[in-house]
């Protein structure tokens, strides 16, 4: 700690005088219109909670699905309207008393998250895949989350046709948090948003209908580690607050830049770089955890595997978008002046993430775990773009996130289709010969895998090229080379799955592909469409990301 804090009476006088000049709380001034996407989502979530209470059980499902879809669509419309009005570019500003930024990256990412969530709702609502239980269509979620798996209570719940329709409000709450997360313009908002979207996710993880033990285990692991990481984040926030005397991004960055008005207290704390550096490190760690970067990635495979697959898809796609958004804002708005400090560290993290993700994935035998490690490797690629620290870096990351999230969503949606008696057949050996039995499903999955692998003409390639290009221009050519090498390693396991699907003889007792309702089909179709459109004609979206690539400060 700072030696300056030990200076006796002088400090004490400052201490008391400071206490006497405490600010009064100003009257809050909220720009409701500009926060409308968030407000809509939260509002609809509330309505959803109420619906749980008041709508009769048999129509709850319909009500919730409609609510969620309408709410998300409305929020998306609001985002588009805001962007149309120029809040992404010329009118970008900071709203809600400095708590939330309304700017290009925020709107772009909010739009992406909302679309992802909208598609995710389709997969959440799917009720045709599982065999009917007692004459009722059932979805992927436990009949009653609190019931002991296999116990009498659960049986009774299934018989009674209970379903956990609470997942929709939970989803909406999570989405609300995610919307704020990348837009958060002070550290407190950041922290609260983090918790707001994390807590519903913890619960969602625990709600799988099949493999409930694994589902609960995933939830507990996710929860404990998540809480652990948010403690780090919070402590980091505390240290930064201690350093700068403020938690608002602009406040901190102006202190770092030395443009802030120096009060005696500031003069004291800013003399202590350790506060700043450790604070940065810990806040970054908190975000890297959510992103799934090595070595903070270890929750990913277990949670991805255990969670209900629709939740995994949503989580993998949306969390990553939100978390990277927050990370970008933090690094670009708060800490640009510190980039000589954080860049080398991020280099190391990016390299470790790319290589470890790709290497460990090579020997995976479960599709969901495989995709989890693949998401780790992708986090590494995105980090390479983050490191570029220029406008290209931002827009390339934005583009990558949009491209990646739909591929992921689509891939997990396909995973829900391949089933046997025990539910989803996620062990890779069960996928052998899928291409012979269901060429279309296998082909679609192959498209997603190729996009993951970054084969040209898919969105994965465009995204990868964009971030690597930004990294190279930012002088991080070695990162590009590491990225390329790990892409090659990664390609190996994507290809392995394709080999398995197309070139292996189907097993006699192999899983069958369930015929989904239009809901999942739509989700998958959207995934494929986005993958191909962003691969073939990415220009419009690149422009969009480019326009959106400026943070407001």
């Amino acid at each position: 700690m700072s030696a300056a804090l030990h200076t006796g009476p002088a400090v004490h006088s400052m201490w008391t005088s400071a206490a006497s000049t405490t600010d009064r709380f100003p009257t809050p001034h909220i720009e409701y219109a500009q926060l409308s996407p968030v407000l809509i989502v939260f509002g609809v979530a509330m309505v959803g909670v109420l619906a749980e209470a008041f709508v009769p059980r048999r129509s709850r499902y319909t009500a919730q699905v409609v609510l969620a879809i309408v709410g998300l669509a409305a929020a998306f419309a609001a985002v588009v309207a805001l962007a149309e009005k120029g809040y992404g570019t010329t009118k970008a500003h900071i709203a809600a008393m400095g708590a939330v930024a309304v700017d290009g990256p925020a709107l772009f990412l909010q739009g992406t998250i909302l679309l992802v969530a909208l598609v995710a709702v389709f997969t959440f609502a799917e009720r045709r895949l599982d065999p009917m239980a007692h004459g009722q269509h059932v979805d992927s979620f436990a009949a009653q989350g609190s019931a002991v798996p296999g116990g009498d209570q659960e049986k009774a719940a299934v018989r009674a046709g209970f379903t956990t329709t609470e997942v929709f409000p939970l989803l909406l709450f999570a989405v609300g948090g995610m919307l704020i997360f990348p837009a958060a313009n002070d550290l407190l908002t950041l922290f609260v948003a983090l918790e707001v979207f994390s807590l519903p996710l913890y619960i969602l993880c625990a709600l799988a209908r099949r493999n409930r033990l694994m589902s609960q285990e995933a939830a507990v692991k996710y929860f404990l580690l998540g809480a652990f990481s948010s403690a780090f984040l919070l402590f980091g926030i505390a240290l930064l607050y201690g350093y700068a005397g403020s938690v608002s991004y602009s406040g901190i960055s102006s202190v770092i830049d030395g443009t802030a008005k120096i009060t005696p207290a500031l003069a004291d704390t800013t003399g202590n770089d350790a506060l700043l550096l450790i604070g940065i490190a810990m806040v970054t760690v908190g975000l890297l955890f959510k992103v799934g970067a090595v070595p903070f990635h270890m929750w990913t495979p277990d949670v991805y595997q255990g969670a209900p697959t629709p939740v995994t898809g949503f989580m993998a796609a949306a969390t990553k978008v939100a978390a990277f958004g927050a990370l970008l804002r933090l690094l670009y708005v708060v800490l640009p002046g510190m980039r000589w400090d954080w860049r080398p560290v991020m280099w190391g993290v990016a390299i470790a993430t790319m290589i470890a993700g790709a290497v460990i994935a090579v020997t995976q035998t479960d599709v969901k775990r495989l995709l989890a490690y693949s998401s780790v490797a992708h986090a590494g690629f995105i980090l390479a773009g983050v490191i570029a620290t220029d406008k290209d870096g931002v827009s390339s990351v934005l583009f990558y996130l949009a491209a990646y999230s739909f591929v992921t969503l689509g891939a997990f949606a396909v995973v829900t289709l391949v089933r046997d008696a025990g539910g989803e057949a996620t062990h890779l050996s069960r996928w052998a010969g899928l291409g012979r039995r269901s060429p279309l499903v296998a082909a679609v999955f192959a498209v997603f895998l190729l996009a993951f692998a970054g084969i040209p003409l898919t969105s994965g390639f465009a995204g990868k090229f964009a971030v690597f290009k930004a990294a190279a221009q930012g002088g991080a050519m070695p990162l590009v080379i590491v990225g390329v090498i790990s892409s090659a390693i990664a390609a190996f396991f994507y290809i392995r799955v394709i080999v398995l699907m197309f070139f292996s003889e189907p097993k006699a007792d192999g899983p069958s592909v369930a015929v989904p309702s239009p809901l999942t089909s739509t989700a998958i179709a959207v995934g494929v469409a986005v993958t191909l459109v962003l691969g073939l004609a990415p220009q419009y979206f690149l422009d969009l990301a480019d326009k959106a690539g400026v943070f407001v400060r």
Partner: protein
Amino acid sequence: METLIGLLVAAPLLGAGVLLTGGRRFDRTGHLLGTLFALLSFVFGMVLFVNMLGKNADDRALHSHLFTWVPVEGFQAQVGFQLDQLSMTFVLLITGVGTLIHIYSIGYMEHDERRRRFFGYLNLFLAAMLLLVLADNYLLLYAGWEGVGLASYLLIGFWQHKPSAATAAKKAFLVNRVGDMGLSIGIMLMFTTFGSFAFSNVLPRAAQAAGTQHATITGIGFMLLLAACGKSAQVPLQSWLGDAMEGPTPVSALIHAATMVTAGVYLIVRSGAIFNAAPDAQTAVVTVGAVTLLFGAIVGCAKDDIKKALAGSTMSQIGYMIMAAGLGPIGYVFAIMHLVTHGFFKAGLFLGAGSVMHGMNDEVDMRRYGGLRKFMPITFVTFGLGYLAIIGFPGLSGFFSKDKIIEAAYAKGGTEGWILGSAALLGAAITAFYMTRVMLMTFFGEKRWVPDAEGHEPHPHESPKSMTVPMIILAFGSVFAGGLFSINSSFVKWLEPVTGHSEGNSPVSTGTVTAATMVCLVIGVGIAWLMYGRRSVPAVAPRGSLVTRAARRDLLQDDFNHVVLVRGGEHLTRSLVYLDHSLVDGVVNGSAASVGGLSGRLRRLQNGYVRSYAVSMLGGTAVVVAATLLMRAV
């Protein structure tokens, strides 16, 4: 007239095309058609010849440019023909003897179901050989050169169901390819030296080039010699010729006696200007020639297979030609002259051998012959005349041509001259020996016939007209050609404008040489008569001396090839296959495996315990914090 040159080549080429792609509808008429195309070519040749005779000696060459073959910057290969006296000589020999052998084959191949194809190949050969001798540049010559190699390959292996034939064919092609390598390197050297490989560009400037580019010119000479060695079965690339006798006998007569194998001589004589400018290369040429003439002769002495004995003889006779060609302007003309006379008598001898085999159930072992003169009088007489011609019986063709070469060898002067001359003389003696041996074992003595593998008793009989007539015509050539060429030095005058000629300064008089040759001849014949005429011939070959046994195995040269090249090559390829799999591929597979291994190990970190995940996070945080602080410190 110029168009006629093209037609000369086109006729047999057309024949080959028709016969080889025409399918079964030509099965009945194929042989006649093939013969017709050969004859047509001969007629064209004769017309051109007559036309040429009508012209001034210095103005006889015809040129005909057809089209640009390979038009590439700096490398303009043309398809063009040049018909001068040298080419003319070959054209007549090729089409003449070729036509005769086509006719002969009509009878010889009568019972072969694939006769049409045989004639197709023969036509293909004629076309390629004509291309070779008519080309006006080395690249086109090379095309013909490989073309005859292909025809030779196809014909040696004509009876493909016999593994020995297929192997022999392959061997011939491969050994020839080594020679071809020489030719192509030679052409490349010409290209880098002269910027061209047309005769008209290279040859006239060879002497000039020798001044500044001596080593290069010598190199070209050596490369051309290598090519000649391959095609003409000269040491060290002679090994294929003996095996080539697996082919039908007319093929042996045409390709492996009269024409194709002499292409090497043509090449050296054609490139005389280069060799004249490269004395070292010339020395190499005469050395090769001298060695081969003895080598072939010795091998010829030991063979019991009539065709292989004749093959050894061919090798030896071509050795004479090559040696003569290596002597420079003193020898060029005589090399060609011997080539022509040899074409007659050796083709005659082979056809005779074929006739014998035809009558003897395709038996080739001379120890199973004996006393055939009574059964095949025409064959006996024509073969006998050929025999007399080859041993150089006074007045017959071989006498004139061979004597000239021996003379020229002495005329080379100095120690070299003496060595070469003596080698040639010794060769003459051995020639007399082995040819007398062949003659005696085949046509004289008691019958030693045995039933063939299927138990058919041989019924020796004279061959049909289609076979005997060509033999008779060739016998005429064997008898009179040499004399005709020598009257008034007509052949020398005919060729001189192309090859140049100079009378050497022989330290030994012509008379002495002739006398010495005669003595050698008598000795050779005498010894042979003592061994095979007076005594009866054992039906199974005696074990023989070390030399004899070596000679039977082609003086172990083949064994050397086998051990060093074949075995060595097998080991090399086998170890390379292994290396490719284990090392080159292994490195890649190994690195893939090591990624897999690393993956397996890293994977174990993911042990499923929340607390260890937390450790990893805490550790990671510590590292990140420490690194951040460290960055500042640095």
